[in-house]
């Protein structure tokens, strides 16, 4: 028997959605132009109910505009958006069953914490006593009890973020949108919040759509990730897929660090003239006189420099044919070479992931 949920979670929980063919959010051929700029340039997308979905991309890639299209702050120039099967063309933000946690939190400075949290309930005409009860519950859910009467100006960044989260959750949205919610927090807090957000999403069974430019955040939290570039989705997949099998050079480069092997080099190694991605941690270094495992590729080269990263040493190599390779060698390993040393890099053929030519 699993331990019962805390009472507040039970109340906040939606009934677990029965598996439904209807997507929580669906985009079909969506475009959003700002003058001549195509911020969103033909996006097709299906987000499943209960999914933790990340939109990942550099700034200006269209991910935030997509989020604002779901929220209703922007209307598409072309294409169709539906939320749980309902077309939302022309439906203003205040009549959509979605809520947003804003990047700057957007707390109302003239209201205290509990007034902020209860704002949506007040607008819906919930009676004051009931409103306060739900507000306190939401604050307990984000572990912020006791700060009810503080003004937003008296809170730390992390606390403000929790208020924004409670304010969006208390009105029970069908989809929660989060616009770089951890961007303004410092590293330690950010890591804590990643775990908490993930746990909260699981407990509530809510659909979370999360915009971030931090690939680590997207990989660690999301069930699925859409990688955006120049207004289009380049690849959608679960984090492992995105990391292990990037479809294009852009994804390989943007998600984690990767060696992108030029087609000519790949051809020499495998016979196929396509660009390939090779993750640094997949590369090992052979010790003097050590034999390569069966089927592994061995590339001789020279060490340019070694950077100590705590858990790993990042070894920059230049191969004898002149291309550069980055290898991540566990710092505990005895194989860490010195700068200028001649070495043999080794990796399995399956570590070399062939990508699309474009």
């Amino acid at each position, binding site marked *: 028997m699993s331990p019962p949920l805390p009472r507040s979670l039970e109340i906040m929980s939606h009934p677990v959605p029965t598996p439904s063919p209807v997507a929580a959010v669906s985009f079909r051929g969506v475009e959003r132009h700002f003058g001549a700029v195509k911020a969103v340039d033909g996006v097709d997308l299906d987000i499943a109910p209960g999914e933790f979905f990340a939109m990942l991309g550099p700034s200006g890639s269209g991910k935030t505009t997509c989020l604002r299209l779901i929220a209703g702050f922007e209307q598409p120039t072309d294409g169709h958006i539906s939320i749980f099967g309902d077309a939302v063309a022309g439906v203003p933000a*205040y009549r959509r069953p979605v*809520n947003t946690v*804003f990047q700057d939190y957007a707390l109302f400075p*003239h209201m205290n914490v509990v007034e902020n949290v209860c*704002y949506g309930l007040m607008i819906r005409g919930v009676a004051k006593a009931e409103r306060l009860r739900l507000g306190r519950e939401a604050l307990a859910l984000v572990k912020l009890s006791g700060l009810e009467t503080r003004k937003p100006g008296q809170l730390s960044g992390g606390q403000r973020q929790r208020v924004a989260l409670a304010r*969006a959750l208390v*009105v029970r949205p069908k989809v929660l949108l989060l616009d770089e919610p951890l961007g303004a927090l410092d590293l330690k807090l950010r890591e804590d919040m990643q775990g908490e957000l993930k746990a909260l999403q699981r407990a509530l069974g809510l659909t979370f759509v999360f915009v971030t430019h931090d690939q680590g955040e997207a990989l660690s939290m999301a069930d699925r990730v859409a990688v955006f570039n120049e207004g289009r989705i380049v690849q959608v997949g679960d984090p492992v897929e995105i990391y292990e099998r990037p479809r294009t050079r852009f994804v390989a480069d943007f998600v984690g660090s990767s060696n992108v092997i030029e087609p000519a080099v790949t051809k020499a190694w495998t016979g196929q003239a396509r660009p390939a991605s090779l993750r640094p941690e997949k590369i090992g270094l052979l010790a003097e006189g050590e034999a390569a495992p069966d089927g592994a590729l061995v590339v001789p080269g020279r060490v340019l420099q070694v950077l100590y990263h705590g858990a790993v040493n990042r070894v920059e190599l230049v191969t004898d044919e002149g291309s550069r390779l980055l290898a991540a060698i566990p710092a505990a390993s005895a194989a860490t070479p010195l700068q200028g040393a001649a070495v043999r890099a080794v990796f399995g053929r399956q570590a070399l992931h062939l990508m699309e030519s474009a």
Partner: protein
Amino acid sequence: MSEALTMAPPRGGLLRRFSDVLVRRHGFYLALLLLPPLLWLGIVYLGALFALLAQSLFSIDEFSGTIVHEPSLKTYGELLVPANLDIIARTITVAAIVTALAAIIAFPIAYYAARYARGRVKALFYVAVMMPLWSSYLVKVYAWKLLLAKEGAIGWFMNGVGLSGLLDAWLAAPVIGGPSLSVSYTGMVLVFLYLWIPFMVLPVQAALERVPVSLIEASGDLGASPGQTFRKVIFPLAAPGLVAGSIFTFSLTLGDYIVPQIVGPSSLILGQVVYAQQGLAGNIPLAAAFSVVPILIMGLFLTVAKRAGAFDAL
């Protein structure tokens, strides 16, 4: 040791050494910064104010017409005679109407300028709002007298579009009407409104400008219609600007003695009384007591505004 080499040797010059002191001694720097304005405020402004308060505690000897330099509340008692209370009530009413109308007219302009106007249009907005302040006050008031006169532009226009009946009906109304606009309270309020509107627009615009777009979006996101967003978020955040603007329009109207002399009915307004008492009548104590009235009213106004939560957003 090589310590001395790592730091630039102190170079001479009195000015440089002085700046070193300023950088090191923050308190001294602040004192230097604030001393001149504080002296100015303290002696010239507050000094004059307290001198005024002191004057109001003196009284005038009715037979000799000389000032009795003994503190008493006799002069304040004179304030409370019906004729003087009448003046105070009339002045407050005019000032309140001017302030309310200024707020109603200024808000949409300020809202547009803060939320929608960009670049060139915004520059044009500032010029348009400030331009009335560039010309002489008297020129503007006399220009309005001509506009408002019986044979003036407004009468001529109303006649031209066949609405002279409406104007006559307005002028026939008690209190706000009169023989012509230029000698009516309507005319006086119009002129005050014209003169003080920039002082209302600018603070309101500044307050609205500080409301982040994300707050308005957040309100809509949480289900508030544009009307609700305006009432619950935009207006409360603009309130400090409205109060600041109201302080300007209200106190400027309370103290003015030139407009009511040129435009409006013959009944006196507070500013005119102060002017008359300290000048022709030589009754400085009563003039001083009258001057205390606007100070009390403004204090009351701010207290009420604070109670109403107008400063919650600050």
